[in-house]
């Protein structure tokens, strides 16, 4: 008996050690190296250099731009997301269920592909929409110039608002409607009820969704790269990219990058802290798991106009850009009108069967996605197990480390892995596919931890205790009790990682080498090289891949839930 206890003890520490090692190597070391390189020069602490970098006009401007664009995007997405969430949960809008599904579609569309499409539609002189209005009404000026702060924010809002939408939908549905009813019975008007009851109750959800968007947008590369650079609008990730590109990876540029990345990490940490505060305060018991049926607001005469508005919004932000991408992908060369003789499937054939770069890119993205998802899924389940279920000393370190992946933006991870894995410390992965894999694991660990710990929390300790009481070893308990029960969580983690990594750009753009382009990188660089039609065709193929993947997953998970 005592012998088996001892071995269990050893195994627990082994798992704990392994978990800590994984997080330290994959996440902590790269982040630490960024701070070290930013604040440590020639062997001593150096703040003047940091101040010098930050007060340079370009870097300072990029910082301001990151904050400005992220704020605008956050405010816009919050308004749009909350409004649509309210519409599909608390009103009698026709086809609510269908519309709710439609508002989740923007999630699938990578925002940099959206940006490419909007560039084709709204670039000041040649955008199809601008051209149309200028030609039809003889306007001198374009209707809207997408190469602007407003343009960048608008595009980001279009593809990021679901973050708020999902959170608010959930909160509104779980909210106890009797609170609103009692207010009404006491004579409060709709406006008062909304202001005093509904909004305070869903505010925590709104804020947590908004902060997620803020976090994402500050460190987002694609949209700003596609729409901003031409007008000299840089944010932190695009500036880091250009600096490193310009000097073919020289140390001075990487150093500037580390300083900028440190700013990103600090702001991200601040945002996460703020989110914790807001959520901690906002855990009202009133939003409980009970499924009350909230009263629906009668839209009356506005029912159909609002439905048409919603459909128009989807058509304008999803259907139109997608159609443009596919059409441009069919053109012989960019600049030709969309007439049957100019359109063909040749580009699609070319990228799928002939063009080495795009064939490599598709292969790389699929294998990278599968491997990253596979590895991260297993590492995630192990680490979550320690955090959620095990009682060992030293768990606190792991809890802290487990928080790290949530607060480190993609561009920071990319820079960190360059510092850690380019041969300075014995291992050189730079310019190989492995460095992208390591970065993906670091970037997506958060998703895996979240899904797996949620699944593990539902497994009651008594099940394991029963198994141990019956004489099962720790490994047996894990294999026969825990793993089968958390399998849905693992599966969720797998796909939560696999799908986003198919369209990843922010990390891989900093890490790719000539043969290790990912789909995102290939689309972006082909566009930069002026292969507009080829890059549009590849974007089209990527959209098909992503949408098919998502549909399959929805089917599978629906079947899982039904049992």
């Amino acid at each position, binding site marked *: 008996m005592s012998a088996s206890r001892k071995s269990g003890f050893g195994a627990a520490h082994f798992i704990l050690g392994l978990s800590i090692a994984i997080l330290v190597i994959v996440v902590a070391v790269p982040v630490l190296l960024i701070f070290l390189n930013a604040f440590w020069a020639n062997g001593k602490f150096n703040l003047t250099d940091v101040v010098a970098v930050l007060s340079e006009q370009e870097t300072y401007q990029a910082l301001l731009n990151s904050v400005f664009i992220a704020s605008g995007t956050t405010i816009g997405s919050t308004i749009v997301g909350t409004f649509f969430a309210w519409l599909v949960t608390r009103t009698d809008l026709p086809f609510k269920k269908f519309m709710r599904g439609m508002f989740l579609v923007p999630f699938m569309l990578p925002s940099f592909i959206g940006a490419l499409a909007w560039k084709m539609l709204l670039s000041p002189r040649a955008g199809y929409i601008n051209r149309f209005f200028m030609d039809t009404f003889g306007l001198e000026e374009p209707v809207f110039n997408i190469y602007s702060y407003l343009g960048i924010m608008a595009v980001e809002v279009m593809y990021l608002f679901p973050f708020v939408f999902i959170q608010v939908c959930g909160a509104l549905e779980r909210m106890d409607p009797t609170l609103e009813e009692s207010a009404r019975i006491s004579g409060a008007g709709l406006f008062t009820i909304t202001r005093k009851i509904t909004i305070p109750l869903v505010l925590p959800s709104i804020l947590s969704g908004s902060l997620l968007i803020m976090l994402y947008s500050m460190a987002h590369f694609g949209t700003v790269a596609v729409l901003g650079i031409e007008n000299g609008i840089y944010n932190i990730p695009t500036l880091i990219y250009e600096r490193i590109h*310009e000097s073919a990876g020289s140390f001075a540029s990487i150093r500037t990058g580390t300083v900028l990345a440190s700013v990103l990490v600090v702001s991200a940490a601040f945002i996460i802290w703020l989110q914790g505060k807001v959520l901690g305060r906002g855990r009202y018991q009133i939003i409980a798991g009970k499924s009350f049926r909230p009263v629906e607001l009668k839209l009356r005469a506005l029912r159909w106009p609002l439905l048409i508005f919603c459909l128009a919004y989807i058509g304008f932000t999803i259907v139109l850009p997608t159609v443009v991408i596919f059409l441009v992908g069919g053109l012989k060369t960019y600049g030709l009108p969309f007439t049957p003789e100019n359109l063909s499937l040749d580009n699609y054939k070319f990228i799928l069967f002939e063009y080495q770069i795009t064939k490599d890119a598709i292969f790389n993205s699929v294998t990278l996605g599968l491997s990253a998802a596979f590895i991260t899924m297993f590492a995630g389940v192990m680490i979550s197990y320690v955090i959620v279920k095990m009682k060992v000393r030293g768990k606190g370190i792991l809890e802290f480390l487990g928080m790290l992946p949530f607060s480190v933006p993609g561009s920071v991870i990319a820079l960190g892995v360059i510092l850690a894995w380019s041969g300075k410390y014995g291992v050189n992965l730079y310019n190989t596919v492995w460095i992208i894999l390591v970065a993906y694991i670091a970037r997506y660990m958060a998703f895996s931890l979240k899904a797996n710990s949620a699944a593990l929390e539902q497994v009651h300790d008594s099940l394991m205790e029963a198994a141990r009481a019956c004489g099962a070893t720790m490994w047996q308990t894990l294999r026969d009790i825990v793993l089968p029960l958390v399998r849905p969580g693992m599966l969720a983690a797998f796909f939560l990682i696999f799908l986003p990594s198919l369209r990843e750009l922010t990390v891989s753009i900093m890490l790719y080498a000539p043969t290790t382009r990912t789909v995102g990188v290939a689309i972006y*660089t082909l566009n930069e090289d002026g292969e507009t039609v080829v890059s549009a065709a590849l974007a089209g193929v990527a959209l098909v891949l992503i949408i098919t993947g998502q549909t399959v997953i929805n089917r599978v998970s629906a079947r899982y839930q039904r049992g």
Partner: protein
Amino acid sequence: MRNRLITLMLAAVFMLGLAAEAASQSLIVYTSMKESLIGRIRDGFIKKYPDIKMDYQSAGAGKLMAKIAAEHESGKILADVLWTSEVPDFYKMKEEGKLEKYVSQATKDPNYLNPFNDYDGHFAAARLGTLGIAYNTKSIKNPPRAWDDLFTPPYKNAFGIANPALSGTAYMSVALLEKQFGWGFFDKLAANKARIGKGSGQVVDDTASGELAASLAVDYIANDKIAKGAPLALVYPPEMLIAPSPVAIIKNATNMESAKKFVDYLLSKEAQTLIAEEGTLPARDDVSMPSKYGLPQPSEALKRSIKINYPEMMAKKESTVKKFVDTLQKK
């Protein structure tokens, strides 16, 4: 079912490993030439030497240099031959002793045109890329004839130059134009609201779409799109911009013999004819230019071109790029 899924995933992980390992034994060329050009050169080379398995990696010059630097760091440069349009990179690599000296017989041919007056066999021009003004034939009715035309109203807010920080040829052309006309040239361009684009290919596509009325365009990029029907034309003002694309063998290359054969082939009349057919200027005068491209004979183009001291230009890159961006974006 689950086991099969896991096997599949393991297979994927394994394949990823293979993909990273795959390396050819015979000849590896790193080049920034576009697929259409390098593809034809490879086909011709393989036809001549069927026993050599040639592989190439095509990417921007900056990416290739970063890869070479990383490979050098880890002990072995995988590339045997480097062929890009970034002349400064070649001077730098020569200085660092990373290039093999090889004087190809082809360079002694009287028909071979050498733009480098300090040629010593470390690298040789394999193409004399030109940059002209590509304009949209729908929006510009009178083709531009001189560089000064770009200061006139039809090009207001509608002339584009690729970002010299991202594109080597764009930097070269900025340096050449500054050498010939002084910095005032860019002040006047800025006054007419000229724009900075991204890559050197993208400005051409933006010209085709009408977003720009005209742009500074690399010859074969524009000619490729013209051949596909884009509403574009390419013209050359009297002072020509020539950006040579040197080819070099990496020091102690694994496949030295094949590398030398490749350089010989690339400088031969046969390969240079392929280059001319792609719509760019060859480095030999005994190749006749297809008339549809409107390019002069290589020797004449070289005579008309703006001359520059490359090492000097290389030293000024950072400050010139910054000044250029600041001027055009009015900071």
